[in-house]
Each structure stands twice: as C-alpha cells, then as structure tokens.
C-alpha cells in the first residue's frame, strides 16, 4: 500500500515548519517538498550580509541535507510546478512529471514585485528576493561603488546598512510603492527616512522615480536616475525593493480562490478539500475582522506553517493574527495596519 503523501510546494520557513510538524505527527507518511530554487532552505533576511561578503553561502543554510534525510523528507529542489489539478490531486512539474498527493500545502512564497508603472525600467533594476539573484549581486558588487535603492522594504534597509558599512555610496529613493500592499504609509516613510539618514544614506523622499536608463554598458555599468522633480543622479547599480507578490501563477485556472494571495480560512484550508496554503502566498481569513490578512515575517510564517500542518494531519491549528508593531528594525517601528485590513 502506498504511504499517505503530503506534498508541500515551497521551501521557505512555512514549508519547512509544516514538513517538520507533519513528520512529528505522521511518522510513516511520505513528505515531499518542491522548490523552484536549487538551494537548501536559507535565511532570507541574511541575504544582505551574504551579498556584501560578510557571510558565506553555508552560513545562510538553515538545515543541512542530513536534516531532511534523517526525517525522510524528500527535497525536490530546482523543480518548477507548472500547474495543479486539484480534482485529480496531481501536481504537474515543468519537466513533465506528475506528482500525486493526498494532501497539498502551498507555501510558494513571493517574488520581487515591480510596480507596473516602473515596468519600462525593469531591465535596469536589480532585485534580491532569492539566493540566485543575491549570488549575482555578490559577484558584481566588488566593482560597484555607487548604488541607488528604489523602494523601501525591510530588506532594502538592511542592504543599505551593510553597503554603507562596506564604504559604498548609497542613495535611497523612498517610494510610495515600497509599502505595497499598504496604501498609505506616511508614518513608516518618515520613520525610515530618519533611520536611513542616520546610517549615512542619501535619501530622496516625496519625489517619485520618473525614469531610469543605462548610460554606459561597462563593468560596472552606469545608470542615470531621474525623479519627477527633475533631480538626476548616477549609480552603478539600481536596486528595486518594492516588497513581493505571491508566487502563484501556476494556480491560474486551478479553481482556487485567489485575490492577492490564495484565500484560506483561519485553519489555512482552501475551498478544496485537502488543499492548504500558508506563508507569504496566503490571504488568511480572520473571523473577528470578517476580512483577510496577509502574513509578513519569519515568525508569522513559522506559526502558519505549523498550524496548516496540524490541520493536515487531522489535529487542529489556528492562524493567529499577529499583534501590530510586531516588526522592528533599527528602531524603525513598522506599524502593520495591513495585517488587519487590506
């Protein structure tokens, strides 16, 4: 008889916590983690340190391979989910393989978000959601002295700090879109602006980006950035940090309810039996609000992964809405109204 098969799409914090919880509660089940990235589960928040050479790739790793071997968790890295058939309970992989599941958890996370109005400049932008892109930046960085950062999410603040620490000139263009999916973020912007100036960054605020173009195709290249007020500056790298959007393109036409993320109830369950979602890609219903909230941050994802897994193995877990002001960095207190109402 075939073992009960839990398939988890994703290899981030929610996915790994879920796998661990399932194994703990269902010893003889088959557990498969599918990730489009080639790397073992890593600390995303340490990527800025990795980029600037302060730590190595192995320091990013959360668990070694042996961790998965010991727990008999099958890791399918570098494999892309092409589509899912939730009626037949099959995950279709891009390399034309069918993976049958009994219960599915989607923790596919997010990918770097570039606001539509900036699409014309996206070839000039460097993003850093994944380790593969971080690797490329790390390789390019030694020849780069001046960096412009457009946006303003937490990762970009950490990156600015480490870049300034390594003697590089950083100009930060704080952009309203940086706080997507938050609509109004003046409080956060002010807080960030002050913190960035203290770090030693040049900050351009209340002056949105108008145009970016490459003016020199060299090593390093040179970009010209223009704001709407007509300010221009040059930089050898332009980082774009507008947060992320759920990586759920493979779910188009799957029948799942999707708004900005996969809509799930407070037990992380979708409208389909045996299909759950957790982490950055999920939009979770809060009964007390009669509305949905999205997850941000490591600890939050950890809790959601655990709750989803408990429900999947037949126990009960509830998504607990985190308190406001749950995220702080360098004294920047990030109010989190979007955790309440989108």
């Amino acid at each position, binding site marked *: 008889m075939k073992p009960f098969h839990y398939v988890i799409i994703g290899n981030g914090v929610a996915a790994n916590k879920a796998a661990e919880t399932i194994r703990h509660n269902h010893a003889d089940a088959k557990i498969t983690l599918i990730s489009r990235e*080639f790397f*073992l589960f890593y600390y995303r928040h340490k990527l800025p340190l990795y980029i600037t050479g302060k730590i190595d790739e192995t320091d990013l790793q959360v668990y070694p*391979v042996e961790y*998965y071997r010991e727990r008999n968790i099958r*890791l*399918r*890295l*570098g*494999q892309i989910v092409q589509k899912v058939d939730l009626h037949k309970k099959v995950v*279709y*992989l*891009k*390399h*034309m*393989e*069918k*993976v*049958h599941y009994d219960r599915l958890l989607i923790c596919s996370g997010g990918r770097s978000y570039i606001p539509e109005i900036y699409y014309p400049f996206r070839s000039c932008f460097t993003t850093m959601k994944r380790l*593969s892109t971080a690797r*490329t930046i790390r390789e390019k960085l030694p020849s780069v002295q001046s960096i412009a950062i457009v946006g303003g999410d937490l990762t970009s603040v950490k990156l600015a700090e480490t870049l300034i620490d390594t003697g590089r000139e950083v100009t930060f263009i704080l952009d309203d879109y940086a706080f997507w999916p938050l609509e109004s973020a003046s409080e956060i912007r002010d807080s960030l602006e002050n913190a960035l100036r203290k770090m030693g960054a040049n900050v351009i605020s209340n002056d949105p980006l108008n145009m970016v173009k490459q003016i020199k195709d060299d090593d390093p290249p040179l970009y010209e950035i223009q704001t709407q007020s007509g300010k221009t500056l040059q930089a050898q790298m332009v980082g774009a940090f507008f947060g992320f959007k759920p990586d759920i393109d493979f779910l188009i036409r799957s029948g799942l309810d999707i708004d900005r993320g996969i809509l799930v109830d407070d037990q992380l369950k979708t409208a389909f039996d045996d299909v759950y979602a957790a982490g950055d890609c999920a939009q979770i219903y809060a009964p007390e609000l009669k509305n949905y909230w999205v997850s941000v941050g490591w600890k939050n994802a950890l809790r959601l992964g655990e709750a989803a897994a408990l429900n999947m193995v037949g126990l009960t877990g509830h998504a607990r809405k985190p308190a406001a002001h749950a995220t702080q960095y360098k004294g920047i207190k990030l109010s989190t109204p979007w955790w309440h109402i989108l």
Partner: protein
Amino acid sequence: MKQTDSLVIKICGSAGDGAISAVEILNRACALMGFHIMNFDSYPAEIRGFGKSVGHTRISRTPLLTPGRYADCLVALNDMHAITELKRIKPDAALVYDSRPPDYIEEDCAVAGFIEPGMSGYGVPLRELSAQAVKSARSRNIVALGAIAAMYNLDPEAFIEAINIRFARKSAVVREINSAALKMGYEYIRNHRERPVHKTLLAVKRHDRPIRIVNGNEAAAIGALDAGLTLYAGYPITPATKIMEYLAKKLPPKNGTVVQTEDEIAAIGHVVGAGYTGKRAMTATSGPGLCLMTEMLNLAVQAEIACVVINSMRGGPSTGLPTKTEQADLNLALYGGSGDSPRVVLAPANVPECYIMTRRAFEIAEAFQTPVILLLDFFLSNRFEDVDETVLETFEPGMFKRLTAEPVSGKPFERFRVTDNGVSPAAFPGMPGLKHAITGLEHTPRGFPNYEGDNHRAMTEKRRRKFIELQNAWPHPDVTGPKGQLSIGVLSWGSSIGAVREALASPELKGLSIGGCFPRLLQPLQTEPLKLFANRCDRLVVVELNSSGQLAGLIEQTTHKKAMRLADVPAEPPAVEQIVRYLTGVLK
C-alpha cells in the same frame, strides 16, 4: 565554478538510443582537444532495443589509470534506466534530462525527480531540439553532447570535427544535421542557464601527435597483425568477438586467413595445427570457450607447439555474465588441463600493453614452443584509451627468438632433445633432414611414444625448465611506493592494476607506508622479485576480481606468506574508493 583534473561522464539510455555512439564522439572530441580519455561502456547481453546501455568515459589532462566509478555528469536518454545509475554519481553531479518529453511521466519514473540537494539539474528539451535539427528524436544523444560541451567549457568545434570523423562514410547531410543538433544543445545551455558551466577541466594544449582511440581487443588484434599473424581461427563469444571482427577486415588484405569455426575446439585445433607448421596463429575466446580448448592446449604443451590464445574473461562460471567483467579464469589459464601442463600466462594491465604483450606473446610462443594465454577481461577488452601511436611504433621486436634446427648428417633428428635450458631446436613438416614424430603421448626425444618413468621424468622436467630463461629475461614486476619496510604491500594483476595504482596515489593513502607490486607474467611467476617484495611487507593484500583470491593463492604458494584478499565479484571494474577504504581499514 569548480575546476577539476578529470571528469567522468555517463550517457545512459536504452540499447539503440545512441548512448555508446555519443560517448564515442565525446572521446574523439576530447582527444582532439588534447585530453586523455578512458571509456568503458556497459550494455546488455540481449539484442538492440532491450536493456540499459551506459556510455561511460573519463576525461583528464593527465594519463588515466581507471575510468572512475562515480560520474560528474549523468545524461538520461531513458529516465528509468538513468534512475538505476543514480547510485553511481557524485553528490555534486550534474544531471542532464529531457525537460519536454512527449507526455507527463508518473512520479518516480522521471529522473529529474531524483535530483538531490547539491546536484545540478540541466533540463534540456532533447527531443524537441533533435526534431528541429534532424526531423526526428534520433539525435537526442548529439543534442546532449552539445549540452555537455557547454556545461564543461569544451570546444564545440572539436565535437563537430569528431562528428565528421564519426560519420565520415555517411553523406554530408548526415554530418551537417548532426552538427546542427550539437549546436542546438550547446546554444540551449548557453542561452537558458544563468550559470551554464558545471565544472571546468584544467586546460590542455591541443597537440599534433597521432592519437588512436582503441580498446583492448583492437589493440590486441593490431598487435597480432603487426606480429605477422597468418591465421586467426575463432568462434564468436563475448567479449572476445571484436578481435575476430577486426581481423576479419584487416587480416585477409595482408594475405592472412580468418576462419570462423564451428566451435572453440575446432578453433584451437586450427591454431595448433598452424603452429605445428611454423605459422603464427591465434584464437580469442572467453571462459566457456577456454574450457573447451583445454584438451587441445594440453596437446600443444605436450607436443611443444607454439600458439597464442587470448582469453577475455567475463563473469562465470558457465555462460555466466557475458557482458560483465571478472578475473576468475586465472586458475583455468594456469592449470587447466591434465597432467603437469606448464604454459605461459600473461596479463596486460592496459590497452597499450594489450598491443605490446600480444606481439611479445608470439615471440614467447615460438621461442619456448608453448601455448601462451593472454588474459584480458571484459573491462580491458572494451575500454577505450587514447594511445599515442608513437608508443606502438617504438615496440622493439626480437626479445625472444625461435631456435630453428639444422640437420646434422648421419644423426637422427631429435625434435624433443633434452637440453640444458629445456628448449629443443624446432623444425616443421617438410624441412629436409628434420623428419620427426609428433604426438600427445609422452615421447622420446625423437617424438616416438614412450611410457618409461625415466623418460617421462626427463621430459616433464624439460618442459618446465625451458621457462627459467623466460622468468629471467622478462622485466620484473612494477614496484611502487616507498623504499624499505612497508606496512602493506598490495599486489594485483591485469586490468585491476590501474585501480590499485590510483588508490595508492590517492590523497588518503599517499605518503603512507604502502607499496604496490604488479606482475604481468603470471606463469611462470617471477618468484625472486615477488619474494623480495613480500619480505619487505608486514602484510600482503591482493586485489582481484574473483571470489576465491586466485592470484592470492599463487602468491601465498610462492612467497610462503599469508595474503589478505580484496577479492570481489561486483560485475564491474574495481572501485578505487573501495580499495582505499579497505587499505585504510587494514592500517587501523
């Protein structure tokens, strides 16, 4: 990006998928670039369309001793077969697979599903690209070669040159479309991978030396041709058949004859008959065939007739494992036959030695009027190496020469005269004044049957004594390692020598008190140098591919010292890693 001294590449498919021919082109291309190669394919015993075929090659900037067991790159032309090869790849290996097969494959049937952390998956639409290039999927193997060229920074032009050589007899269209398929695989990797290169080989200079890519069978056949072979008689048997196939093409133009006989008994009968007339004749067979030949070989021993037999060993007993390697026919070669039946047994260690020892075998057979058995095996017969042609050209004939009789008037000719060195001057039918009798019965010096004890003792002694000269004249076994007393002395023979030498040179064992001793002449065994080596060693270990430790038994008899046996029958060449592990364990 990792740099490496050598790369092991496996291309795995069903028989007929072109895995073997792809590796052939890869070998040629790498040899053209100046790399050394060692290639050992494995394929099913059955006919085309069944079973797994694995083209396996190792590429290096330095000369190679083994083809390596664990691959840096596995190309899957057939997912199910490739899955079974995953246990023979390195933890950081690259896996090339068809990313767009015609339909979805069930879980656990797609090789891509087995990519472990640390490995690199290279999905390439092999079928699609092949269809674009040649209008069918049959050049998937060539597309995969293009991918390999890109993944290892190998010059695609060398691959195209190799394709042109491989398809030289085909039309220009065939060469062009296969070159196009290669370029498609190459460009796909370059354009679709952020980091196309998996590993790079340390660079070598392209050279102009004439290089032949030959396997042990071909090298032995070429050696026989260059030795002046006039008759080859044989009955097809894996893994020796290729010798006959090669000679069937090459010997008749040189006025020689190839006869495919009805069985092995007839084949050795032809060869002994030709030897009786003074012609250079040879047969090649494998274990089951050698069993059948033992009676006729005994006749050649008794009648002191020169003949050469190549025995390419495979897994046994009986029909055994026709397409798997083993070294379990040593006892049969040494002792097969009734009575005291001394003969010469040689075991080359690599492809150039197959050439050299086959040539030398004819000299020995004639000089000492004896059967000479050359022990190859499936691995050595089928493994390809790049051989510098100048090495073959520098062979110096005449190390041993036939002593031909001259008629002495008034005295009857004694064909089997008992001499001090045991060698009697030879004569052949039709030579004036040298009439003599030949028989399988014990005989007098003139060749007439005689059953007296004194005569039998004298003749038996003479037949053994004649090899003392060979023992003395043959180069002493290779001895490697530190001078002085050794913790371990490792002995091995034939095709296993390479693995032992590589193990001894490995970082784990290098610098330790371990030495090696590698005889090629297994009968008569060179007792003195072996004793000298054994006396220097606290422990002896014999590495060979048989279960009972056949050489180990011989070494114990000779050196009067107990030998530990790393004797295994894995149906594949010995693994360096296994030898290193074993010796490390012995040292503890």
